[in-house]
């Protein structure tokens, strides 16, 4: 771990301004990911800005009938919130499918969105990784890639985003609220928040330097059956091989997003028009152009089969 300086932020605007003008600054909230990465010197911030004291830990109703979730709301609290459980069941289910009870007690809503990949080559600083050391290459390509992306990957990176929560946020059409260093707030649709790797897999989100997430807002509930199905090798405490977040209405229409298949939560709205025709038709569009490796080609039939089971469950 590299030595670093530390401060507690007093307001979101000040935190953002400080981050923008301080070389190597990072925000820290729950620390469940960043601290591990610092110990391994995968992340080497020179300065930590602790945002835990910023009172961004409320879940409030919005005038539009939705929910505004403070950036610092802990995953445990978000999953247990009665409004979330009633109106956004897919989110609650995705949250409890992730990590462990202890981690969820610490992990925050904004931090969850900003989790970094679990690619084992990203974690081994002896190995090249374009995410960790831009331009050094990708050891996962041609290497152990069972967990890796099958769609939207690039020649620079085939990593996946590990979050469950973010997949549910994507299917719920959440928006990310931020404050920028020069003052103004903005909202970023979740669809635009995470980037595909392209040639710059180290640039993972739409956030500009210093920009701080203050909340994630959910629109008015849309009803329907909310299902989150996470497929993994062991029953708990494992990252998804694939996951399906779905909201299915009585008439068979609905929304679907996938986890474990791409560098970001994977949703293609136009594919959802196929939902009444069944899982095969939806999957064909969702995963069109997929380029799996030999080791993760199973994710294609697995998505289709899992979605099939989810649609059957939604029918009841």
């Amino acid at each position, binding site marked *: 771990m590299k030595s670093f300086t530390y401060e507690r932020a007093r307001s979101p605007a000040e935190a953002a301004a400080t981050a923008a003008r301080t070389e190597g600054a990072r925000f820290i909230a729950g620390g469940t990911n960043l601290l591990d990465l610092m110990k391994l010197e995968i992340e080497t911030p020179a300065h930590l800005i602790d945002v835990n004291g910023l009172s961004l830990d409320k879940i409030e109703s919005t005038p539009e009938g939705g929910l505004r979730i403070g950036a610092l709301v802990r995953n445990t609290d978000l999953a247990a919130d009665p409004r979330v459980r009633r109106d956004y069941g897919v989110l609650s289910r995705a949250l409890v499918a992730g990590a462990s009870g202890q981690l969820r007690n610490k992990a925050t809503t904004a931090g969850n969105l900003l989790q970094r990949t679990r690619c*084992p080559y990203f974690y081994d600083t002896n190995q090249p990784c374009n995410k960790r050391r831009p331009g050094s290459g990708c050891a996962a390509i041609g290497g152990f890639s069972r967990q890796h992306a099958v769609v939207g990957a690039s020649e620079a990176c085939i990593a996946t985003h590990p979050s469950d929560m973010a997949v549910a946020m994507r299917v719920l059409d959440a928006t990310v609220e931020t404050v920028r260093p020069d003052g103004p707030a903005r909202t970023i649709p979740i669809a635009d928040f995470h980037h595909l790797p392209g040639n710059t897999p180290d640039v993972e989100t739409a956030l500009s330097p210093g920009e701080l997430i203050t909340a994630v807002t959910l629109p008015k509930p849309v009803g329907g059956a909310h299902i989150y199905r996470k497929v993994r090798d062991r029953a708990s405490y494992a990252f998804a*091989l694939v996951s399906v977040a779905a909201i299915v209405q009585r008439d068979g229409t609905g929304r679907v997003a996938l986890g474990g298949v791409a560098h970001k939560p994977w949703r293609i709205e136009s594919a959802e028009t196929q939902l009444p025709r069944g899982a095969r038709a939806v999957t064909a569009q969702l995963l069109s152009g997929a380029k799996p490796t030999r080791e993760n080609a199973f994710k294609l039939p697995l998505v289709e089969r899992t979605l*099939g089971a989810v649609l059957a469950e939604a029918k009841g």
Partner: protein
Amino acid sequence: MKFETAATTNPIDQLKVIGKPLSRIDGPLKTTGMAPYAYERHDVVSNPAYGYVVGSAIAKGRIASIDLGKAKAAPGVLAIITAENAGKLGKGDRNTAKLLGGPEIEHYHQAIALVVADSFEQARAGAELVHVDYVKAEGAFDLEAVKDTGKPRAPFGGPADTAVGDFDRAFAAAPVRLDATYTTPDQAHAMMEPHASIAAWNGDKLTLWTSNQMIAWGVGDVAKTLDIPKENVRLVSSFVGGGFGGKLFLRSDALLAALGARVVGRPVKVALQRPLMFNNTTHRPATIQRIRIGASRDGKITAIGHEEWSGNLPDGRAEGAVSQTRLLYAGANRMTATRLAALDLAEGNAMRAPGEASGMMALEIAIDEMAEKLGLDPIEFRILNDTQIDPERPTRPFSQRQLTECFRTGAERFGWSKRDPRPGRVRDGRWMIGIGTAAAFRNNLVVKSAARVRLDRSGIVTVETDMTDIGTGSYTIIAQTAAEMMGVPLEKVVVRLGDSTFPVSSGSGGQFGGNSSTAGVYAACVKLREAVAQKLGFNSAEAEFADGEVRAGNRRVPLAEAAADAGLTAEDGVEFGDLDKKYQQSTFGAHFVEVGVDAATAEIRVRRMLAVCAAGRILNPKTARSQVIGAMTMGVGAALMEELVVDKRKGFFVNHDLAAYEVPVHADIPRQEMFFLDETDPMSSPMKAKGVAELGICGVASAVANAVYNATGVRVRDYPITLDKLLEQMPDVG
């Protein structure tokens, strides 16, 4: 004490303390965090410096140069140990690659430097500043690719090749035949406590508080590596947070701590970093196994052959996956072959039931497949080919063998008769249900073991032996043995373990520790009883030791009186004769598993497990049960998820942390039942006990595999059985 003839009645048979399901006596220390593990010996070491290990970034080649300049200048850094500045080092008898590598690199994450600093954080930061230039060399990393270069290598307990009768002819002539190949992956011990040591020098004398299963082996290899007399080395390993064979040997943490402490003139503590645990230490090596079985139509095995290929560093051992096949089933024509190829991965070595654990993973699927070919119930097929004699040497009976009884009892308890033998027929909602079984088999080894027993004036009996407790319950069964022998309650016994100043024991390994070490304590107690009897004027043959008294006829004397002021001490051990040559000593069991396989995703979840074991006298049913259910858990890991994934280009285990190397979590393990059959084995020791700790894992994975087959009709022969291996053959989603 020599143990050369079958045990007769002795004080252990009273079963006043032995055989009782007592909670472990070290339990309160552990549950309150007071058990002093090696890295936390704040009680004996003050002001230690901290070491951080630098592992090689390449798998094979050499170090062209190391630049220590920046690291040495980093805050708090006291010294950096490398092969270049460590002085001449020998190599221990029991490690294959050097524990401090360089300039030659033998495997990935081989230790090449130790950065010693005032604090752990400073050592870690310093380690990141060590700059190494390597020259890479080509290496062999793919077992499948090099398998045919394998040379005959004798595994533990047998020659490289065995042959009885005419296997080839009998197999060719058999009306029903199986010829199948199975693979098992490299596996990690993945114990909770990493290898960890504190080293302190006092003049030329070294003390190592370390986490080690085999104290005397450790002393020998420390002395040899440092080229100092054994008498100058003390090892203390009072508590071990899991070993599973990974801590049988001296490893880099202890050696580097010793080297570091010598240089900085102050105690140094080193815990191997978790990401190094998988490539720096040993692991269970991958195997490729070909099994051929021929049988008559009525199900009698006429030919059985088992060939194994594994890989290791030059001079490494072969896994020995064929060993149980020499003993488990009858059949007049038999062969085994063990081949070892050179690989440049980290050293393969013992992990819980080395040989049999891997071998049973393959053999017991093959038996299931063969039973199906024959149209026989898998249990009936096994019982049909049960044997009470060593199939290779018919003059040699098994000392005890209740394999059939294990299966019969287990079948009854598990409801085997309700199993539908046709695969894919049973559903419970989204789950396809299957039931599988497999034999459990592991040889019983006996190892010389000594102890010292002291009686003091307050009637306290103190046992000292260098035996270790690696979570197994050694403290407790040794206390029970001494209590039974001396006729005192358990609370009157103090057990001190894991110190090389104590008499040399069997140590913990190969499931020999429980029986052997208690037999050693038995021997010392026999001697102490004689001394007590003599002191108190009893005829030792007549004296009865009970309730804190020594009694004969009408005379009763408190035991403590024999101690007087000076106390009374006896030291002895057990040495085993050739009963294990005259009789084949093995332990047996039957595993039963019910799985559910998700019809859509092919996720496999274990729903029920039962093991029935016959393993001699069970000294403590509670701690023994813990061993068996722990082993069953490890078997589920082997079946469904554990695999060290080899990057065959770069030559290392990629998933080298506990996030990526998955072992079962609580949610993976259902209610486990286990049942011991009544058994005493007078050929094994005066305790009449045998090992159980490794028996419990042998066969579990194949019982799971057979249950998956029963659930789905998909036969997977390559472990672990992950959903991607089933998916193609699963039924369409409704």
